[in-house]
């Protein structure tokens, strides 16, 4: 007798393999993904890679996402399985098994499943972990150790997390069994469904949520300031999606049904009414698919563009091979330039595209209403963190001479109060600039400005102001000293130069030259008696420092792909189970329609078009979400110095197309299953 429950549990799993195997496969995949993320977060070899620490902190973040996801996802699938099996439990109950006996069977089932999926999941994880590690090592150019890395802590973490999840699933199943009456258990699959009621308010709320979410996403100018707003937008869009899928779809169908001329047409009659029930049953699942798809698309397209646009961003951040920045009145400026020249010629390198200029960079709080920049230091403290990013502006003043020389233009300024302006993020709203109680008239907006790595690294709004001459610049400098006191800015001096020839070929020479200069400058600053003692500036080299640049972004790409895969898996499984339920529910309908005089082909056509609508609705909605998201994500990317909108657009469209093809394949495969069930 004691052996009965385990063997019953075993046969139950075997019998319902069509629903159970996909469940186990999804458990296995989720476990292995969780294991991999944990293991990569622990892997000491990764910590040794360039930017490895950043990767690992992303992985830590990924762990949280995957565990939340695993919890929701496995619960969702299990509740589906449970619903299918309720009549089975009812039968056991009527045949004389008490609820506690059924509970025992369920406990054994859950236990077997847990052990099987844990073992297979960890095994898969260990195999795939190696692969992931190889990919990471390739991306970051690290060495590849032989053999498998098995992380015991990752194993125990996985056992723990999924143990808890399975335990909760088990409790939920037991709760369901105890809650139900046997007759209900037997019947639960065949009770007539009520026609869904229209919830006009919810539908309207859905439209409002979606509309405002889109509005925020499209209109937000400064992405840093908007991060908080963006989260609001994301939540609004998610809420809007759920509301529209549930209430909105039913409302729309009801409207169609009320229109008698439309409803009582051969083509629409069956679709409209069946769709209403389909939407009632599937709305949440479809909204899930839609949200997951949107996440996949946004994540993969954004991270892909970051990855592909890395060189672009590098050029923005390090506009020239060598750049020296220092205070304009530093007496050593010339000496350092000569030092650079010497080191370069020692390595046989030639300079190219040399430029130098002075600027004064001042921060101020932009007051839109009064159209002026407040320079009172107290005004900073009253701002919240997000406001700061929105309102804080950096004004960079240069002289007309420097501008014309560097940009090879011949702009003219006649009056001392006239200026030319270039803005890199938010545009200036007015044609005057009020700062330090001085009013400057903007006589022209410029399309281009001197390359400046610092400004690229700075995420606040930048305004580049070209003034008439040194007199004006110095005047502003003095006012700045007066206003800001010890926090005042200095006039800086920049010297930028490229190296003739291919930077890859000259890499060693450039590195040698740069190290040479660094050593001399550093040494001298420490000892205090060298010719460069007290030099205020710094020197940067793209080839050397750019090495590590973007490694963190590559990690982001990696995580993007990783989570993308996870969400795709979820999408596939939800689709699979949807088709399965639809199949069982449509079977009877298929028969009736044929009995009352619809041909097999007509029925198939009608049902096919409904299923098509049901499955492609989320994809299309996801596409619209992504489109509205585009401007915002693009602005975020500009923070990371990716200004190539074409690249991002191509990445987004490409991802969408690939995803669509994938989606269609999954749809085709799962609908074969659907027809098998319906035809039987």
């Amino acid at each position: 007798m004691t052996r009965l429950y385990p063997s019953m549990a075993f046969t139950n799993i075997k019998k319902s393999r069509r629903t159970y195997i996909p469940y186990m496969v999804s458990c296995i995949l989720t476990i292995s993904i969780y294991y991999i993320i944990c293991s990569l977060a622990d892997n000491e070899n990764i910590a040794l890679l360039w930017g490895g620490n950043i990767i690992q902190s992303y992985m830590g973040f990924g762990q949280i996402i995957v565990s939340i996801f695993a919890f929701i996802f496995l619960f969702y699938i299990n509740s589906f399985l449970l619903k299918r099996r309720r009549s089975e439990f009812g039968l056991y109950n009527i045949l004389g098994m008490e609820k506690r006996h059924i509970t025992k069977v369920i406990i054994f089932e859950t236990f077997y499943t847990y052990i099987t999926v844990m073992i297979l999941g960890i095994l898969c994880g260990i195999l795939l972990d190696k692969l992931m590690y190889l990919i990471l090592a390739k991306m970051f150019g690290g060495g590849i150790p032989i053999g498998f890395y098995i992380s015991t802590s990752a194993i125990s973490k996985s056992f723990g997390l999924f143990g808890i999840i399975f335990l909760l699933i088990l409790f939920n199943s037991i709760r369901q069994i105890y809650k139900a009456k046997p007759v209900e258990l037997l019947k639960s699959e065949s009770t007539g469904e009520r026609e869904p009621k229209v919830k006009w308010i919810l539908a309207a709320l859905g439209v409002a949520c979606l509309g405002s979410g889109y509005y925020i996403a499209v209109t937000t100018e400064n992405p840093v300031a908007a991060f908080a707003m963006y989260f609001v937008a994301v939540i609004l869009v998610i809420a809007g999606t759920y509301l529209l899928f549930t209430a909105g779809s039913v409302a729309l169908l009801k409207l169609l049904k009320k229109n008698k001329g439309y409803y009582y047409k051969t083509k629409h009659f069956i679709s409209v009414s069946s769709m209403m029930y389909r939407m009632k049953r599937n709305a949440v699942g479809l909204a899930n698919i839609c949200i997951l798809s949107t996440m996949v698309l946004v994540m993969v397209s954004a991270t892909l563009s970051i990855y592909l646009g890395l060189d672009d961003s590098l050029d923005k951040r390090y506009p020239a091979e060598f750049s020296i920045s220092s205070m304009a009145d530093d007496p050593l400026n010339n000496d350092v330039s000569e030092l650079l020249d010497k080191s370069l010629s020692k390595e046989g390198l030639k300079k190219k595209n040399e430029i130098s200029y002075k600027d004064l960079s001042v921060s101020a709080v932009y007051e839109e209403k009064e159209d002026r920049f407040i320079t009172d230091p107290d005004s900073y403290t009253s701002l919240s963190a997000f406001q700061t990013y929105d309102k804080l502006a950096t004004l960079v003043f240069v002289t007309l001479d420097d501008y014309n020389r560097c940009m090879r233009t011949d702009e003219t300024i006649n009056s001392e109060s006239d200026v030319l302006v270039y803005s890199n993020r938010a545009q200036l709203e007015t044609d005057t600039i009020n700062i330090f109680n001085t009013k400057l008239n903007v006589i022209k907006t410029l399309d281009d400005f001197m390359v400046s790595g610092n400004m690229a690294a700075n995420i606040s709004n930048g305004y580049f102001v070209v003034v008439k001459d040194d007199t004006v610049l110095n005047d502003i400098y003095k006012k700045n000293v007066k206003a800001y006191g010890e926090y005042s800015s200095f006039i800086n001096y920049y010297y930028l130069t490229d190296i003739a020839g291919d930077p890859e070929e000259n890499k060693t020479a450039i590195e040698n030259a740069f190290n040479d200069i660094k050593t001399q400058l550093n040494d001298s600053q420490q000892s205090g008696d060298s010719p460069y003692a007290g030099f205020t500036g710094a020197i940067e080299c793209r080839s050397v420092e750019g090495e590590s640049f973007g490694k963190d972004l590559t990690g982001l790409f990696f995580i993007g792909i990783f989570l993308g895969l996870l969400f795709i898996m979820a999408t596939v499984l939800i689709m699979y189970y949807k088709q399965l339920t639809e199949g069982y529910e449509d079977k009877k309908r298929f028969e009736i329609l044929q009995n009352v005089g619809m041909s097999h082909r007509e029925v198939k056509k009608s049902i096919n078009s409904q299923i098509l609508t049901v499955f492609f609705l989320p994809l299309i909605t996801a596409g619209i979400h992504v489109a509205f998201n585009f401007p915002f994500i693009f602005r975020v990317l500009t923070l990371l110095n990716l200004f190539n909108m074409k690249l991002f657009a191509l990445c987004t469209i490409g991802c969408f197309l690939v995803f669509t093809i994938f989606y269609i394949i999954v749809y085709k495969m799962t609908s074969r299953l659907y027809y098998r069930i319906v035809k039987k």
Partner: protein
Amino acid sequence: MTVLLEVKNLQKVYTTRFGENNVTALSNVSLSVEKGEYIAIMGESGSGKTTLLNILAALDKPTRGKVLLNGKDITAISEKEISAFRRNNLGFVFQDFNLLDTFNLKDNIFLPLVLSGKKYNEMNKRLKPLASKLGITDLLYKYPYEVSGGQKQRAAVARALITSPQLILADEPTGALDSRSADDLLRLFTEINREGQTILMVTHSIKAASHARRVLFISDGTVFHQIYRGNSTTEEMFQKISDTLTTMATGGDIND
């Protein structure tokens, strides 16, 4: 009277997938139905009555033989036209009603008309007298799960009648009903038959069959015997049928 339906030497043999076993469901059935008749076909389970009905309904094809409706061989109609043909010429009443639970009764009744592309106003015009005759006028906006079995079956009858079919085919129409609803339904059938509607009903309920004007008995795939009502009352008819069934069950020869 004109012959509406003629069945000639119908044979149906089911072959298992590998062709090892042949099961003869109908060996040789011939019968003819005149316009305005009300016929019940009786037989035990496995006697072939469901197979016969499926062939008459053009849901299944015979191995041999012909089914002529108004002189047209329905076994020869192409797959494409068969559905439209069934919709326009035949009305069906099933044991388990076959109502779609996603439609209210009114839309269920409209279903065959909508499939034929009829206008809403015309459908409504046809529905009104029919619904009041069947006593379902107040139920039209209810859903199948909201009404009783008898009411469901009346809606199904309305759906069968609304196309004004040549022939109503009923498959155990009282099978899922309580005795009172069954009586109501049978009375309804008698009434619509009196108005000229031809009905062919398959049943193993003696009570149901006793309402018909002619009862055919099928056994081992052939028409074994038939009884005409003549001027007998329903009670006398009931007695005749049960006598016949007893004789059949005890293996006696009915024509003695």
